[in-house]
């Protein structure tokens, strides 16, 4: 593989995209082919179903439900075939020759167009997932704003009641099945294979198929507005669902496609995590996001079939009709809720566990401390997964189910607070006494803890039987679900996107806009959903368009803040889009994280790793001197002749050569001690006697004595100290240039040593042994071994060093 990849990458550099056999645009997998194949399959589905009904069974040809169902199933199949998900498998099936040699023609993105076709690269699929799901997030958000506009005052304003029912049903369905569940699949897709040191997912083509089934589900759900919106709420309870308008079928088919996509991805994750971890990556060395995805995928594999089953049964009740949920025919309404919630309560953890994983990563990295209670967090993840299957009936306390089920469900529900509490306390303990960098991802992580605790506590309220009976189907439930899904899941999604944005796009997002986004979102979110608790306790019913006039002012307040919340999302979208387009190039490891995805270049190479990395330790050993998570071997590309700057070459090539050979080039490496008197004296001494040039680099590290670091402030101070140093050297008649460089002093020095203008001597200035982070990491010895250059080590005491910090 490695040899193949190397050969391939050489090939790419020469010819760009590795190309498969070229065919006409009508025939190769593309949106053009998808369009005509989808139409063809849709027509075959509709006409074929009608023909079978008429000629085989002798029924009237058209029956709305049956024809719709089969048409949509074939439209879905036709789209995935047309776009090209099945090409390889079809070739394999008919023994066509071109599957024998995988040409990787559908792997990796070489231009923006590659994001719009079937791609088997997990990184491309990850980005495709995130962008698609955010599209549906915005659509679902627009529906929410429509709901809030209607609710801004009592009475019926803008929407007919049936349309209003459709609005909240489609809003919830999109947010759950097309945003929160799949966006985690998208982030996981990008990050998990990199994190475990794999070259891709276990089944890349299945991965592509999973992705392309997803938008179908969303489009089906949205198009239900055209045929009469499904209006039974996202829970689609049976008597309503069976007798509801035609849009019900579109929702059912949408859920089946989204669910199939989800299951396929989960199987893929499980196999990938079990079989493709790098050497040394034992289960207890996996980053917690990988643990979270392991638990989530298990829940998806075992839970999602239950919602598929429940929707199949509803479909049968509509089409044949069967009598599963029809008491007149011997069926039972309650059984729908049992089957539905047996999936949909674990689904709550499907929507939350990956978020927990993201938070564990973000908090450890941005607090520069090992995660507190690694094993407990991992095991509590599994515990939540197992307990999640034992609590489903707490959604049914008022449904008339068997009374003996109530107490056990109440107890198991409250038990879930224990593993969740373990996580919360572990995160807080991780931050305690850490060096907290309040970057945007970290802000969202902290905001998440705050809001999720509120949502979790109202969840415990709801678990308590008497409280639940009192507030069932009121806005208290709406407040709870939005605190855990918006304040919980969505905040973790934001944290994850900001955290991995530099790796995914190769660009840095705008930190200022990110912080603005956080603060507006945080306050608007709390102002929107907090008053709903009160409304619920007062008895305002959810899912009803009209409400008593006494709730008018509070609802108006909520609507205003809901609009602000919506507007804050636009800041995020702008920041992401603009930064991706024109942002600053991001370094490979801007957060100095230890996990493997940050140890590869940015953006990540097509096959991730040249060789399987060797994992040697914990992924969270922040602050431990010399600790390493893994050893990554990068194959150096063929050396190219260093380009000579045209201007220099034309102007005075000979003189340049003289300068290079006769001047002594001293490299000074210092951060907090730059500007220190002893350092300047030492450089002067070293430069005395012969013509010298000095390059000063400041790897901008964190002050080792701070708890909370404001990046901009530290950077400004560093630049100031650097300017003072250069000034002092110039006064002494030494030609000096300087710059603030990447955080890791080791790589920063190597960059200069390996540049076209290497130094002849190096001066490293540090704090005394007890306080120097660099010395703890053996910087001087490691550089001496690596460069072979004379290195002078100067110890500057804090006070003289700090004296010039004014």
């Amino acid at each position: 593989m490695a040899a193949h990849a190397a050969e391939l990458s050489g090939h790419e550099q020469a010819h760009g995209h590795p190309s498969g056999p070229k065919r006409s645009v009508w025939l190769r997998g593309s949106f053009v082919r998808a369009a005509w194949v989808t139409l063809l399959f849709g027509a075959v589905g509709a006409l074929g179903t009608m023909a079978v009904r008429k000629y085989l069974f002798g029924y009237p040809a058209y029956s709305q439900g049956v024809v719709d169902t089969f048409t949509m199933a074939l439209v879905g199949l036709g789209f995935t075939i047309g776009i090209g998900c099945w090409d390889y498998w079809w070739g394999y099936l008919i023994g066509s020759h071109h599957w024998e040699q995988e040409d990787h023609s559908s792997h990796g993105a070489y231009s923006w167009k590659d994001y719009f076709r079937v791609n088997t690269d997990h990184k491309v699929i990850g980005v495709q997932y995130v962008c698609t799901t955010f599209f549906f997030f915005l659509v679902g958000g627009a529906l929410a704003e429509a709901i809030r506009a209607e609710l801004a005052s009592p009475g019926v304003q803008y929407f007919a009641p049936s349309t209003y029912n459709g609005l909240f049903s489609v809003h919830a369905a999109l947010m759950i099945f097309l945003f929160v569940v799949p966006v985690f699949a998208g982030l996981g897709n990008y990050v998990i294979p990199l994190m475990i040191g794999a070259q891709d997912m276990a089944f890349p083509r299945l991965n592509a198929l999973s992705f392309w089934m997803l938008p179908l589900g969303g489009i089906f759900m949205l198009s239900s507005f055209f045929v009469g919106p499904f209006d039974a709420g996202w829970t689609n309870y049976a008597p309503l669902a069976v007798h509801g308008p035609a849009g019900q079928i579109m929702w059912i088919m949408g859920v089946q496609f989204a669910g199939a996509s989800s299951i396929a991805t989960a199987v893929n994750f499980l196999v990938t995590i079990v079989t493709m971890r790098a050497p040394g990556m034992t289960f207890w060395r996996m980053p917690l996001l990988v643990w979270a995805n392991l638990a989530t995928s298990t829940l998806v594999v075992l839970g999602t079939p239950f919602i598929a089953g429940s929707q199949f049964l509803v479909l049968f009740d509509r089409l044949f009709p069967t009598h599963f949920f029809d008491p007149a025919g011997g069926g039972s309404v309650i059984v729908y809720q049992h089957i539905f919630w047996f999936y949909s309560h674990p689904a709550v953890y499907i929507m939350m566990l990956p978020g927990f994983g993201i938070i564990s990563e973000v908090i450890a990295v941005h607090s520069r401390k090992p995660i507190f209670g690694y094993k407990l967090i991992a095991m509590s993840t599994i515990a939540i997964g197992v307990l999640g299957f034992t609590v489903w009936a707490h959604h049914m306390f008022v449904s008339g189910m068997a009374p003996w089920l109530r107490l056990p469900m109440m107890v198991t529900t409250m038990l879930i607070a224990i593993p969740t509490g373990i996580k919360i306390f572990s995160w807080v303990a991780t931050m305690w006494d850490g060096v907290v960098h309040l970057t945007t991802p970290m802000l969202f992580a902290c905001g998440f803890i705050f809001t999720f605790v509120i949502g979790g506590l109202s969840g415990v309220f709801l678990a308590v039987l008497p409280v639940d009976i009192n507030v069932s189907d009121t806005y208290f439930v709406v407040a709870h679900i939005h605190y855990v899904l918006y304040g919980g899941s969505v905040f973790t999604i934001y944290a994850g996107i900001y955290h991995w944005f530099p790796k995914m796009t190769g660009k840095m997002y705008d930190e200022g806009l990110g912080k603005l986004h956080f603060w507006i979102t945080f306050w608007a979110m709390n102002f929107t959903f907090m008053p709903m608790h009160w409304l619920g306790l007062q008895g305002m019913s959810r899912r009803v368009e009209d409400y008593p006039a006494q709730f008018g002012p509070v609802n108006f307040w909520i609507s205003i803040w809901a609009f602000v919340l919506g507007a804050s999302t636009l800041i995020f979208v702008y920041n992401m889009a603009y930064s991706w387009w024109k942002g600053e190039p991001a370094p490979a490891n801007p957060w100095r994280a230890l996990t493997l995805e940050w140890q590869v270049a940015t953006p990540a190479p097509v096959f991730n790793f040249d060789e399987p990395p060797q994992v040697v330790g914990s992924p969270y050993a922040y602050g431990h001197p010399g600790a390493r998570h893994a050893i990554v071997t990068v194959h150096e590309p063929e050396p190219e002749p260093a380009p000579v700057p045209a201007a220099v070459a034309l102007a005075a090539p000979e003189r340049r050569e003289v300068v290079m050979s006769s001047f002594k080039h001293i490299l000074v490496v210092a951060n907090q001690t730059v500007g220190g008197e002893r350092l300047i004296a030492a450089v002067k001494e070293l430069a005395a006697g012969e013509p010298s040039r000095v390059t000063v680099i400041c790897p901008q590290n964190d002050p080792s004595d701070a708890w909370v670091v404001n990046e901009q402030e530290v950077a400004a101070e560093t630049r100031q100290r650097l300017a003072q140093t250069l000034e002092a050297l110039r006064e002494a008649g030494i030609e000096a240039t300087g710059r603030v460089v990447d955080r890791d002093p080791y790589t920063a020095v190597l960059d200069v040593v390996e540049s076209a203008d290497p130094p002849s001597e190096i001066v490293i200035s540090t704090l005394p042994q007890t306080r120097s982070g660099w010395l703890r990491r053996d910087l001087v010895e490691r550089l001496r071994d690596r460069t072979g250059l004379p290195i002078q080590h100067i110890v500057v005491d804090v006070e003289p060093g700090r004296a010039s910090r004014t």
Partner: protein
Amino acid sequence: MSAHAATLGDGHAAPAEPHVSAYHKSLLRSPVFLGMVIFLGSEIMLFGSFFTAFFYIRFTHHPWPPPGIDVPAAPTSINTAILITSSFTMHWALISASRGKRFGLVFGLFLTLALGLTFLSLQIHEYVNLNFTPSTDAFGSGFFALTGLHGFHVFLGCTLLTIAFVRSCRGHYSPDDHLGLEVTGLYWHFVDVVWILLYTVVYLL
């Protein structure tokens, strides 16, 4: 991929075996096999949701089965025997493949496929001659949903078997390399086991 190149053999082997680091080779037979096992877990839960509905209705519904409904338990025992036999022929085909015996492989697959199709035909025959429909009663709903879901899985299994049969006729499998066959076999055994449970629950009890 090195794993891919290694399995090419006669040029028609498993499709693009994912790269597994040597460190994990000992854990399992192959990612594809593990993937199928996990997928079958999902299938079990899908059948589980249908069984849940069936049991729930059964225990809230008296008498069971409702009067006037004849469940053809005895004739269907033939169908059950056919499906169980097909599991043995499938196993025979698999053993033959791993021992390099071509006749057993091809003929075993042929028998399995023929038995599977016979099962489906008898099932359709049964549907046509029942004295109840899915709309008669909740029992009929459960009966048709469960047997129909299972029948659909038999149909999928027959599709896989057809592919495996054609490929075995073309000599695509070797003793070291017949992963597609193993996965098909696993799926077929699963379909068989589900039927035994289903027959017991729906027809006998």
